[in-house]
């Protein structure tokens, strides 16, 4: 895996490196994408056991409390969330809501997840089992673009993004969750271009900030895009020792945009009725994606800029620096209860 860590003080050297990288970014881009998380503890908890086990001290229900997502009249019903990830296992938590599975690596027809990351991430946004996700009735579109090690090529991710663009109406895809990214940015980043094209088509793209913080300029691509919603963990250094990526981006944009819990989030394993805890901004991003699904169920006419602006207006500051917290912590209650805001005059 090719990692580049840089600071703003070494921009000149970085420019030379990037020129070299750009030369390699041809038809098949070789830099790898990581899943953005790390396993803090893996525990098999049979259904119901987690509540009795004092070791399992944070789970999605607690994370939902932290972002003020209590009893909601919305569940994301009918809103399609596409996940670019390692795949998904057919477990009861997802019911019949996995409306499409595409394998961009091996071309398999039957759904699978040979890593487990994709199933976990999907559970946080859309799980409807013992641990309810943020939007437990949202539709799931899983595009497998990373392998069993959680790595893959940007070209496969871009192929997945292209597929979403072509099939967005068929599956009512309103949100794309990318708990993946690369810490090897290149000039004219094709990943950033691809997600921005989706955004302009009316799809809200939510990306993880990456776990390469805390130095400035450590946001992963495509979270560096000024358009998309980049999510960092609100509680990383305190609980898991992981540091979310921090801004600014190379073009001086403040990132991340928003925070959500990302430490020790319990969600689905690949085996039915079992759960595990993972930490990282991979876990924070689907909390935001799920919240947006609730909002879009209520206000389906909102465009991505409207959604992003409403997230800004409704989030709560945690009094951290802007390049650590963005606009602050997600507040679902405020987001859902506020009147729709249309950023630009319509047509």
């Amino acid at each position, binding site marked *: 895996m090719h990692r580049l860590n840089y600071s*703003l003080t070494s921009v000149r050297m970085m420019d030379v490196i990037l020129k070299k990288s750009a030369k390699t970014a041809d038809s098949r881009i070789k830099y790898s994408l990581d899943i953005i998380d790390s396993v803090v503890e893996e525990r098999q908890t049979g259904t119901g056991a987690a509540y009795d086990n004092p070791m399992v001290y944070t789970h999605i229900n607690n994370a939902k409390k932290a972002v003020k997502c209590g009893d909601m009249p919305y569940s994301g019903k009918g809103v399609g969330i596409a996940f670019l990830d390692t795949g998904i296992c057919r477990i009861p938590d997802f019911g019949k809501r996995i409306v499409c599975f595409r394998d961009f690596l091996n071309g398999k027809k039957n759904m699978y997840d040979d890593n487990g990351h994709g199933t976990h991430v999907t559970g946080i946004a859309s799980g409807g089992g013992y641990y309810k996700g943020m939007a437990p009735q949202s539709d799931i579109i899983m595009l497998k673009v990373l392998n069993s090690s959680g790595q893959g090529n940007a070209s496969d991710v871009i192929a997945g993004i292209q597929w979403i663009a072509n099939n967005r109406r068929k599956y009512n895809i309103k949100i794309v969750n990318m708990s993946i990214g690369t810490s090897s940015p290149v000039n004219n980043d094709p990943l950033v271009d691809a997600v921005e094209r989706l955004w302009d088509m009316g799809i809200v793209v939510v990306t993880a900030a990456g776990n390469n913080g805390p130095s400035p300029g450590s946001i992963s691509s495509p979270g560096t895009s*000024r358009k998309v919603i980049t999510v960092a963990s609100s509680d990383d250094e305190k609980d898991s020792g992981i540091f979310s990526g921090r801004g*600014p981006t190379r073009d001086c*944009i*403040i990132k991340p945009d928003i925070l959500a819990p990302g430490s020790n989030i319990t969600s689905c394993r690949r085996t039915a009725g079992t759960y595990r805890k993972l930490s990282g901004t991979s876990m924070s991003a689907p909390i935001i994606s799920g919240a947006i699904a609730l909002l879009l169920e209520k206000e389906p006419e909102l465009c991505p800029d409207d959604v992003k602006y409403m997230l800004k207006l409704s989030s709560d500051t945690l009094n951290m620096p*802007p390049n650590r917290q963005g606009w602050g912590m997600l507040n679902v209650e405020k987001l859902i209860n506020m009147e729709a805001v249309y*950023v630009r*005059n319509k047509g």
Partner: protein
Amino acid sequence: MSEIKDSTIHEDGIYDIDKSCRMGIFAMDAEERLIFALMAVFLLVR
């Protein structure tokens, strides 16, 4: 309905600009190149 005015709203998206972010130029004139080269030589010799 009037358009919302907010420093976050830009033509190409919703974002905040980091005003404290330091930007630099990557160009050097001949004089600067000479100083840079002399400094490099000095450091090497030293």
